[in-house]
């Protein structure tokens, strides 16, 4: 049986065992919870705001009332819906102050047209005073123009888009490059970390010897990586669909506002997927190899902190590529396997050439193979022996009783 087929047999078992578990539902739903909460509370907040808009009572004759509403309509056209409070016209014989006392109005405007007066709480005056002053001035301007017999006609504004000097495309792309790197780091960190403890199941259930007697250890490692990558891609597909749906509903114009990456959106999205896979496999192979040497959960936990720290250092190294894509540091970050996906995804945003990506992808997958080989060799050497404790425990010289 070929190593690939053996790897797929193991990958299938691991994938099915992971995806058909209750824990996987939590895994899928977990990252969606903050989004759902945000949308729910945002919606409730908007509703609360919508149900209680501020109301200004305006004491005016029918003719004055018409003038007030005409002025309000013009200003709303200019400022946008919701910029002004609601107006409630009341006849001059109605006691406007009583509405204030009853809480039916935030403020009362009276004395039109000669001595306009706004009554209300200090907060209401502070919030609505300037707006009502606009309205009153607008009414007065209308009345003056009418008296002078002048009729204004609307002027059409010619709108011509030119390059935005304040926000050049390079600056936008650098931001996008950093965002892509961060997303890649975030996904790799939260998803690849699971591989650190991935061999513990086989070791604790003693299945490892059955696997190792039947297929090469390289195939075991590869199978586990493929399974966990498949599980991660399943999760990312679900989360992306949810995020895409939420953006389409709540932020429909967002995609149009983002500057396109240098390689174009379709290739960029494809590269994001490939570089995520490469980054996941590179880090996952390392985690799997190191974690496979661990004998206990405690050892795995002890190892996770320095590894995460190392990951952040590598990310810092790669982030230079987003700042100075042509620098020697960026080139080194593109070559060093673990920083290469981060550096190259930034490059895809900033530079249009595609051949460096083909080279980098081939190099990254070659590195994955090499890491798996080294990890498998160490595993066979140090773990599969009678009566042996965990490699890390032996390394730091602790007795099995102490552990």
């Amino acid at each position: 049986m070929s190593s690939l087929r053996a790897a797929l047999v193991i990958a299938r078992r691991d994938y099915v065992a992971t995806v058909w578990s209750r824990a996987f539902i939590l895994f899928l739903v977990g990252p969606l919870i903050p989004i759902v909460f945000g949308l729910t509370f945002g919606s409730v907040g908007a509703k609360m705001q919508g149900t209680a808009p501020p109301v200004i009572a305006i004491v005016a004759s029918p003719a004055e009332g018409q003038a007030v509403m005409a002025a309000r309509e013009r200003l709303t056209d200019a400022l946008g819906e919701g910029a002004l409070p609601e107006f409630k016209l009341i006849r001059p014989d109605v006691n406007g102050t009583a509405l204030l006392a009853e809480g039916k109005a935030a403020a009362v405007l009276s004395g039109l047209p000669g001595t306009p007066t706004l009554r209300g709480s200090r907060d209401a005056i502070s919030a609505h005073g300037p707006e009502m002053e606009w309205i009153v001035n607008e009414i007065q301007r209308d009345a003056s123009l009418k008296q002078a017999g002048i009729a204004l006609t609307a002027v059409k504004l010619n709108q011509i888009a030119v390059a935005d000097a304040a926000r050049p495309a390079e600056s936008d792309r650098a931001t996008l490059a950093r965002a892509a790197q961060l997303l890649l780091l975030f996904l790799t960190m939260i998803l690849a970390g699971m591989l650190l403890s991935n061999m513990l199941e086989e070791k604790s259930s003693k299945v490892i010897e059955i696997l190792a007697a039947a297929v090469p250890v390289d195939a075991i490692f590869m199978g586990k990586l493929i399974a966990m990558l498949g599980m991660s891609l399943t999760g990312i597909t679900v989360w992306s669909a949810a995020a895409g749906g939420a953006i389409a509903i709540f932020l429909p114009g967002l995609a149009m506002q983002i500057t396109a990456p240098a390689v174009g959106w379709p290739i960029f999205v494809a590269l994001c997927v490939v570089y995520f896979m490469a980054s996941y496999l590179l880090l996952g192979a390392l985690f799997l190899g190191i974690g496979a040497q661990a004998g206990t959960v405690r050892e795995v936990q002890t190892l996770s902190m320095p590894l995460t720290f190392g990951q952040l250092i590598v990310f810092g190294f790669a982030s230079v590529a987003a700042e100075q894509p042509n620098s020697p540091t960026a080139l080194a970050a593109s070559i060093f396997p673990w920083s290469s996906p981060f550096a190259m995804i930034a490059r895809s945003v900033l530079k249009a050439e595609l051949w460096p990506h083909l080279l980098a992808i081939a190099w990254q997958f070659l590195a994955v193979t090499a890491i798996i080989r080294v990890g498998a060799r160490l595993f066979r050497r140090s773990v599969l022996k009678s009566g042996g404790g965990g490699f890390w425990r032996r390394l730091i010289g602790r007795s099995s009783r102490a552990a």
Partner: protein
Amino acid sequence: MTQEFAIEANGLVKHFDGVRAVDGVNLAVPAGTIYGVLGPNGAGKTTSLRMLLGIIDPDSGDRRLLGNPSPLKVAAQVGYLPEERGLYPTMQAREAIAFMGALRGLSLAEGRARADRLLEEHGLGDAARRPIRTLSKGMAQTVQILGTIVHNPKLIVLDEPFSGLDAINQGRLEALIRAQVAAGATILFSTHVIAHAERLCERIAIIVGGRVQFEGSVVDARGRLRPVVTLVTRADEGPWRDALPADASRDDRTWTFELPPTGIEPLLARLIAGEAGIETLSIERPGLHEAFVDIVGGSVADSMDRAGEER
């Protein structure tokens, strides 16, 4: 495969942390036989089996499994039951067997079909779709054994297969081993329970301290010791006493001694002539246990007996 041997090992050596765990092991397992590897705990049996199967590589020496120097290349024709049993606890019994078959090259569909048939044949048909964690230890062990043979291997390697089984299941396993050999398979198993090896094996290797102390047939092992004569006489004393060896042990009128190199006939003639009044006389070939004690020494044999009782 070399015509006669399913397994050949020459000078296998393995060190762990500076300790020579296996020290030049030589084995030759004839095809179509049951071969036992005997030795106390820590003797190097499991490490030797792991090297033979390619789970770990020897530091020096070479091995051929079914004629191939790369054991994993013939893994599809080999079944292996490790000493430390292992199954995924959440897997169904039939899936576990099919998975073990798939690791050895069977398709999952074929593996499931064979798993259903094997489970039915071994009285576990009702447990086919139960997760392993819900099975008793004996049932889980049977599932693992069935997973070891699901792909009809030519060579089956069993590391301490009887450990943890009750007497009934031990008998079933012995029957299964004999059935596999009758179907043409070769069996190599390790044990420290000599009775199993004596009942099943044609040839054995005794490993102590990482070295093979004896390698040959069970008959040869037992043949290392002279047969034992047990004589019961009616007379207490008489001239017939001179016919008995000087180191014969006595318990009342019962005498026990090794059969003299000259055979039983001259002895019998002298006993009759000396009027010993022979009540009973028996000649017994010593068992494998006695041969084992003779080969490895009493202290090692005692430690094995204790370990066997603890299990």
